[in-house]
């Protein structure tokens, strides 16, 4: 899935769009689910950045 150019970006975009709309109409637990969907790209960015840093440190002679 990671090798596909658009699969993961599309998944994150659809999830975030659904989260934004869901937060507008939802109440209670659904509101938290909506927030999680909106937060997913932020978490993914932080995780990928950290992973790249760890790999860079491991490859350093």
């Amino acid at each position: 899935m990671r090798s596909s150019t658009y699969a993961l970006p599309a998944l994150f975009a659809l999830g975030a769009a659904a989260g934004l709309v869901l937060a507008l109409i939802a109440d209670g637990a659904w509101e938290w689910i909506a927030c999680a969907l909106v937060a997913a790209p932020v978490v993914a960015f932080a995780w990928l950045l950290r992973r790249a840093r760890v790999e860079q440190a491991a490859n350093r002679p």
Partner: protein
Amino acid sequence: MRQKSLRRWNWVHEWSSLICTPFLLLLCITGLPLIFHHEIHDFTVELVQPASPAPEQPASLDTVVANGLAAAPGQVVQYVSWDEEQPDVVMLTVNSAVNGNPGDASVLRMDAGTGVFLDRPDLQTGVMAFLLQLHTDMFLGLPGKLFLGAMGILFCIAVISGIVVYGPSMRKLSFGDLRLERIRLIRWLDLHNLAGTLLIAWTLVVGFTGAVNTWADLVLQVWRFDQLTEMVGEHRGRPHPETLSSLQQAVTTAEANVSGMEPSVIAFPGTPFSSESHYMVFMKGKTPLTARLVKPVLIDATNSAFTDARQAPWYVSALLLSQPLHFGDYGGLALKILWALLDIGTIVVLITGLYLWVARRARKLARLSPLDKRDAEPVVGSKA
């Protein structure tokens, strides 16, 4: 994708981004504190709190208005409104005349339970008011708003063209690859691509709803001259009543005629959103979605009788729904914090994009040989 087509998309991405980037940076930076506008206001301004516990029966709106006018001698009430975040407070917008300049209006906070005047917060000055105006129209009024709206649309074009050019640039890479060991240009390109692709949905939603919000003045004008004028119909031209009927009775009449809704804003007779002889009560729903939408109810201000009620047109509903999607104030503090993080992410995309353009241009110039450079320079005095 064909080379020619890709070059065109690259050109669209480059120039749409370049033109809107300075303004988008301004909007993202000023927008960051505005996300927490309410929290900052509550923290920095000492507001008088309403009586606690609130009385079981709220004060009559007629008492609230009378107490407000006593606290603001020589002024008249233009609007009565309620704020979801302060349910125990009623706000009165007062001005020197019912059709007075909006810039001269001020807000009185009233205790909804006791009807007592609380305070008159200064909303026109201070750092937050400055940032808000810089963010909405750059102190240029409607032309400034429309210009920023155009920049919002250009930003959306930059995001869409960015999606197209992202594909070919990622041919040899997997999603999320960050080549941190490479030169800065490559590192920042990867960072730009990753942050940009992850923020596609949010940037498109906030960019487009921001552009829609810049048309708010025009949309409201169209609504006034379209539906609201039609509602007044045969009552147009009736003089302003010498004595206004009971406001509380007007709200009770509106609630009786529109079930399952509550008042959100009341426009007094003579204001731009009503007639000379009517209250316009804007009712809102009680569910998370319908609370964002309004239904205008026209009430005769001579006897508080029901005159007309309509469903707001689609363009007003679209505007009202676009507002929370732009401000991010509809999901509590958690969503506001997320909004701030996504805003910072957008700043990263903008700055890395700008750096990539400058660095690539510098490299291109450096690649020109001294002979080429001499050829590229215009010859002084030549006709070419």
